[in-house]
């Protein structure tokens, strides 16, 4: 089986990653990659790692029929063109926030008014570790947000095991500069953005909406730190009853034992004892681990992903694999690098 796939928003960071993954995918053949600003340029012009690909950006207005269309555009774009997208493709995977929430009310609260609220119920949210079973055959897929992904992967085992506690968990996230997209601006210039620990969303980050929808409320804060790829969520949880390391291993293994893209990493010796974004950079893997703090009645959960892969493009391909009955891990086997600096 070879399926054709196109990427709208292919000059961006998530779009470029989609191109990389689809070009190496055994079941997909790349049809179109769109860009308004670089129409007709080779994709290698924007993405130097793809110089070997014989493909030019096309205009997003000229979409050809394909099996799957991936949209990696800023939020608000897909909802405006969704009929057209679904006309040209049987399966649409949207990486933006447009179809992630269940109701128009939620969307209004966190974003700016939804043009096609009736589709919210129809769309399937995609975080395979959360709802793999919903994905087979789904044809309008809303790929999850990067920070929400990191957070939920950390919290899901505790939610299952009823260990989240009645006190709201605190989630303190650290992210790389690629989360801001390819656009740039003064705050993301190298001179200003290097070496930072910068409160970037002190409160009110929009991914809270997704997390609340699936796991419950959290007190959420996001910091920009000096890396390009990577999102790391530290979840400070206060279970109502004392839990032991053994309880936690039980809960985490229960949830993730069979997950192909989750690795439990917690304690031990050597340099890499807990989840770290750089251990999974360039991959679709998540590292998840924890530590018990008996003194403070706390469980600290660490979760690390590559926001561009597991946090967006990889997750979208993973969802498409599941939706279309392809081997789940197809095209997503890259294991990452060691040593690696600040990917």
């Amino acid at each position, binding site marked *: 089986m070879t399926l054709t796939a196109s990427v709208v928003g292919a000059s961006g960071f998530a779009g470029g990653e989609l191109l990389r993954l689809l070009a190496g995918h055994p079941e997909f053949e790349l049809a179109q990659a769109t860009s308004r600003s670089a129409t007709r340029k080779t994709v290698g012009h924007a993405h130097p790692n793809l110089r070997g690909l014989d493909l030019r950006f096309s205009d997003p207005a000229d979409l050809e029929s394909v099996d799957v269309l991936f949209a990696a555009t800023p939020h608000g774009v897909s909802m405006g063109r969704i009929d057209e997208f679904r006309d040209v493709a049987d399966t649409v995977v949207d990486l933006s926030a447009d179809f992630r929430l269940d109701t128009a009310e939620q969307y209004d609260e966190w974003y700016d008014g939804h043009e096609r609220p009736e589709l919210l119920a129809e769309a399937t949210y995609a975080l395979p570790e959360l709802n793999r079973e919903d994905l087979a055959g789904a044809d309008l897929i809303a790929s999850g947000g990067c920070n929400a992904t990191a957070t939920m992967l950390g919290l899901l085992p505790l939610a299952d095991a009823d260990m989240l506690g009645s006190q709201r968990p605190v989630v303190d996230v650290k992210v790389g500069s690629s989360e801001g997209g390819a656009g740039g601006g003064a705050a993301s210039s190298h001179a200003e953005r290097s070496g930072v620990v910068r409160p970037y969303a002190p409160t009110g980050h929009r991914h809270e909406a997704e997390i609340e929808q699936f796991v419950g409320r959290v007190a959420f804060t996001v910091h920009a730190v000096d890396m390009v790829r990577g999102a790391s969520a530290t979840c400070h949880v206060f279970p109502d009853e004392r839990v032991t*390391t053994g309880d936690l*291993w*039980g809960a985490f*293994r229960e949830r993730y034992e069979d997950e192909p893209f989750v690795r*439990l*990493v*917690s*304690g*031990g*010796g*050597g340099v890499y*004892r807990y989840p770290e974004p750089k251990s999974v950079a360039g991959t679709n893997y998540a590292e998840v681990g924890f530590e018990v703090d008996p003194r403070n009645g706390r469980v600290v959960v660490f979760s690390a992903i590559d926001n561009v892969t597991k946090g967006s493009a990889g997750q979208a391909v993973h969802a498409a694999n599941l939706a279309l009955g392809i081997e789940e891990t197809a095209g997503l086997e890259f294991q990452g690098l060691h040593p690696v600096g600040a990917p």
Partner: protein
Amino acid sequence: MTTCPECGADVTLPDDVETGEILDCATCGAELEVLSTEPVELDVAPELEEDWGE
């Protein structure tokens, strides 16, 4: 193949595993002491306080 006493994951052991040997668990990284070999029994080895500096 035996089970890690720390995290419960399967631990693959070398064929010639010896009593007293310390092995790490691939899942949780715990240092495991081989208490006996037939059958293999593992226990979590006392952790060396390794300072990452402060």
